[in-house]
């Protein structure tokens, strides 16, 4: 077996560049390689944008049903977005620590999973040096990840004191850790 291994000092920068919370798109390459996962999203068209939605219902087993940012809209309980909500996050370390400001829940329900997704954010053509492929819109997905949500002590990826989400109540994400590997073995 062969191994690729990053130096200890390489890891934090590697995570920082991939999450890119304070960074613009990388204009030296195109999509999706150039767009960060936690895109800054200033609320306009100057950057891609990222959302974290706490969801109810059955957790997907793959991404085949998550075709754009409006997928499973009826199951979205709480949605956080970059540009306003992710300022408490620490993305220059590995594991990165995702934290948000308080946001009011938009719908009631039992939280079962969460979805982080990055979108093109409503422009076509060339922006920040990246030229959008034909046919994309502001709901077209660039990057996604999903994980489980559950009660504290459940072992879910995101643990919530009370999974019974109440519409209008304020919620925040606190210390969701994303660990990125820095060593790989392969045949």
């Amino acid at each position, binding site marked *: 077996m062969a191994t690729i291994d990053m130096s200890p000092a390489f890891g934090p920068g590697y995570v920082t560049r991939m999450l890119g919370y304070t960074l613009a798109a990388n204009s030296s390459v*195109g999509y999706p390689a150039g767009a960060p996962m936690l895109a800054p999203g200033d609320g306009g068209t100057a950057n891609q944008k990222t959302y974290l939605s706490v969801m109810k219902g059955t957790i997907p087993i793959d991404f085949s049903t998550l075709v754009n940012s409006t997928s499973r809209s009826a199951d979205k309980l709480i949605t956080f977005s970059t540009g306003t909500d992710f300022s408490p996050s620490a993305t220059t370390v590995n594991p990165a620590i995702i934290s948000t400001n308080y946001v009011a829940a938009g719908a009631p329900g039992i939280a079962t999973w969460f979805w982080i997704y990055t979108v093109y954010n409503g422009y076509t053509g060339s922006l920040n040096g990246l030229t959008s492929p034909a046919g994309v819109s502001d709901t077209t997905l660039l990057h996604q990840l999903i994980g489980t949500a559950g009660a504290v002590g459940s072992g879910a990826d995101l643990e919530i004191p009370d999974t019974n989400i109440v519409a209008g109540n304020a919620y925040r994400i606190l210390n969701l850790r994303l660990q990125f590997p820095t060593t790989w073995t392969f045949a």
Partner: protein
Amino acid sequence: MTILFHSNIRHLMIGRGILAGGLTSASGITIYSGIQPTAAAIAADWPTYNSTNAKFLAHFTGAVWSHPLSGTTTFCSITTFPAATPADKTGTGSWCILWMTNPTGAQLLSSTLPSTQFIIGPVSNLTGNGIVRFATNTDFVAGVSRTIGDGTIGATST
């Protein structure tokens, strides 16, 4: 459940994670013989791995890597190749350091680590799984020039 990432993460790792660390500018590649250590071991004890070490076989400068097809591939590769370079010592290359900078001979000789930013991986001939590969074999003879055949780092998903 393990957090599930969309396969686009591969493009992100190659483009923003690895290449943007320094490989899109002229960078150095050092070839070693012997058993590949960990990157942490190199960072912690560079004097054991500097150019005075018998396993330090050759150093190539000026490699530039890129992400083909405007970042739509799931691999990056060397697109500007270093010049043919005489080997420093004799031996069989088995692993390499990809520096995010372009270290000089003096830096490689020093007891100070040339750069804290680097990736290590296997070296092989063109039929092997090296991230840096050489035609026919990875045999180096002191004073005899060799050229890099290709260099590729790919990302797969399950």
